[in-house]
């Protein structure tokens, strides 16, 4: 490898490490400034002063702040986020347990968003300022503006309570819980692997409503962005060139113009996916979806700072990873970025 070729990965590594260190510093400081006493959360408010002091020393809170920070960094880097006060499990174990539920929901929602949003955005750009374009834009505007928790409640009221077409909250009906042994953590996949088709069907039904709502939100944003990128691309001269070459109009739109929109769209999709992965807090709460968002909400409500900070670091790391991945795709797809 030449020096030049090594420069790029080293630069990326330095950038990632610096950002991650900044993230750790911020989460550490948040943990110290919030008006929650971590010792009290462990020993309880009726503990004797000696017990309290002993716990404080055991937790390293008597040490200078910089020393505490270094201990915190070394713990985090070895995957030790502390123990959850709420569940009494190591936070990392809790996160690994709940994260697949969020991941499953985020992937389904993103697929729905991409499959619906991109064609809608293209259609809207090609038929710009027509009646159908206005309808599409209004649909998008609603999806982007309406509070998702309200849509979730409305969805539950209509499709579950009134029409009884879809199941209620949770990943699966209560009597199916705990039957399938987790392999991937994705209930749909695990039930398929186990050959439990009844549970698979039930899990898919449970997934439809929350995933569609998050997918609608994702679609709304994506269709607006796609429309705007497409309008910009369709006005470029290389599009006229393609037309005078004799390229069919559908190929001009789906091949030439969309091909160039794909580059900024990747960033939009990746960041949207990152947002969904961080745990759609409100959606997961409304649907009692046992993912990262619900875990974070419960931890916050119970002043479980180890869990809250652990989740924050995981969310930050996800965003760093997603950004890195989209930069990588950018370089593959756009020769100008190489």
């Amino acid at each position, binding site marked *: 490898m030449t020096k030049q070729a090594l420069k790029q990965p080293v630069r990326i590594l330095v950038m990632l490490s610096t950002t991650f260190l900044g993230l750790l510093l911020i989460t550490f400081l948040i943990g110290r400034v919030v008006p929650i006493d971590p010792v009290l959360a462990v020993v309880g408010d009726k503990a004797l002063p000696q017990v309290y002091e002993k716990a404080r020393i055991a937790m390293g809170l008597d040490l200078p702040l910089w020393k505490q920070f270094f201990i915190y960094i070394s713990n985090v880097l070895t995957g030790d986020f502390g123990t959850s006060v709420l569940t009494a499990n190591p936070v990392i174990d809790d996160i690994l347990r709940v994260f697949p539920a969020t991941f499953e929901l985020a992937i389904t929602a993103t697929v729905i968003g991409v499959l619906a949003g991109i064609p809608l955005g293209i259609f809207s750009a090609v038929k710009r300022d027509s009646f159908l374009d206005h309808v599409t834009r209004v649909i998008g505007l609603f999806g982007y503006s309406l509070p998702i928790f309200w849509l979730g409640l409305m969805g539950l009221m209509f499709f579950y309570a009134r029409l009884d077409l879809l199941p209620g909250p949770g990943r699966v009906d209560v009597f199916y819980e705990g039957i399938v042994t987790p392999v991937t953590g994705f209930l749909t996949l695990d039930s398929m692997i186990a050959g439990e088709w009844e549970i698979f069907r039930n899990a898919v039904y449970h997934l439809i409503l929350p995933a569609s709502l998050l997918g609608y939100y994702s679609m709304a944003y994506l269709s607006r962005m796609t429309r705007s990128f497409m309008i910009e691309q369709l006005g*470029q001269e290389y599009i006229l*060139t393609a037309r*005078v070459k*004799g*390229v069919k109009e559908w190929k001009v739109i789906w091949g030439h113009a969309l091909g160039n929109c794909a580059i900024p769209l990747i960033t939009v999709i990746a960041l949207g996916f990152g947002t969904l992965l961080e745990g759609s807090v409100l959606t997961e709460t409304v649907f009692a979806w046992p993912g990262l968002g619900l875990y974070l909400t419960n931890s916050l409500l119970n002043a479980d700072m180890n869990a809250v900070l652990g989740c924050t670091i995981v969310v930050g790391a996800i965003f760093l990873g997603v950004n890195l991945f989209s930069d990588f795709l950018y370089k593959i797809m756009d*020769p*100008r970025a190489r």
Partner: protein
Amino acid sequence: MISIENLNIFFGHGQTRSHAVKDVGFTVEKGESFGLVGESGSGKSTVLNCIAGLLTHWSGHMEIDGVRLTQTRDMAFYRKVQMVFQDPYGSLHPRHTIDRTLKEPVKIHRLGDANQRVAQVLEEVGLGAKFRFRFPHQLSGGQRQRVAVARALILDPEVILLDEPTSALDVSIQAEVLNLLQDIRKEKNLTYLLVSHDLAVVCHMCNRLLVMNRGKSVETLTRSQLKRGAISEKYTKQLLIASKGYDRTAIDQFQDFE
């Protein structure tokens, strides 16, 4: 080769509809180079886009090589008529190599022998084989415009529509590209319809020219008439003065022509 009569072009609908080109007409003989001249907004590029089939809201009569044009163009039309655009930065697909850009029309028109054609056309425009697998951003403006010319030539057209092909280039490169276009026309007996706001470029490239203002024809001139200054219309005289460079006294006397 090209016959245009009573061409009217419209943009928009209803109350926002604008009449961009009004009753324009001209003819271009086979092998001739004809210029459309006028200031920005005069409708010259609009006429060119309309002939190329990029605009559909028009009325009038247009013929190319005896074939009457309708609102849609078929593949045979694009074999016969090609176009070179103004912006060498924007007219090439940014993520396609030169090779891919040049091969695409060959494949669409099922001409075969794509490799041979690409190599030959690159030679014709003065770019060697080393440019073949580069991306547009790896070329200079002049080189890109040569690729744009090569892209138009690869289908062996009879008519080339040139939309200000050198206005986005440095002055030193402009002459190179203009001379290249002249040489190719003579060699292949091509018919050019050139749009430019630069009278010097049109005088260098064209046998005859039509002056346009605000979507209307002003007058048709030959190159020698233009050189001699044998101009009858006031607007054309004003355009000629303007093309000679900035002159405060002359500008103060300029009129606004409807």
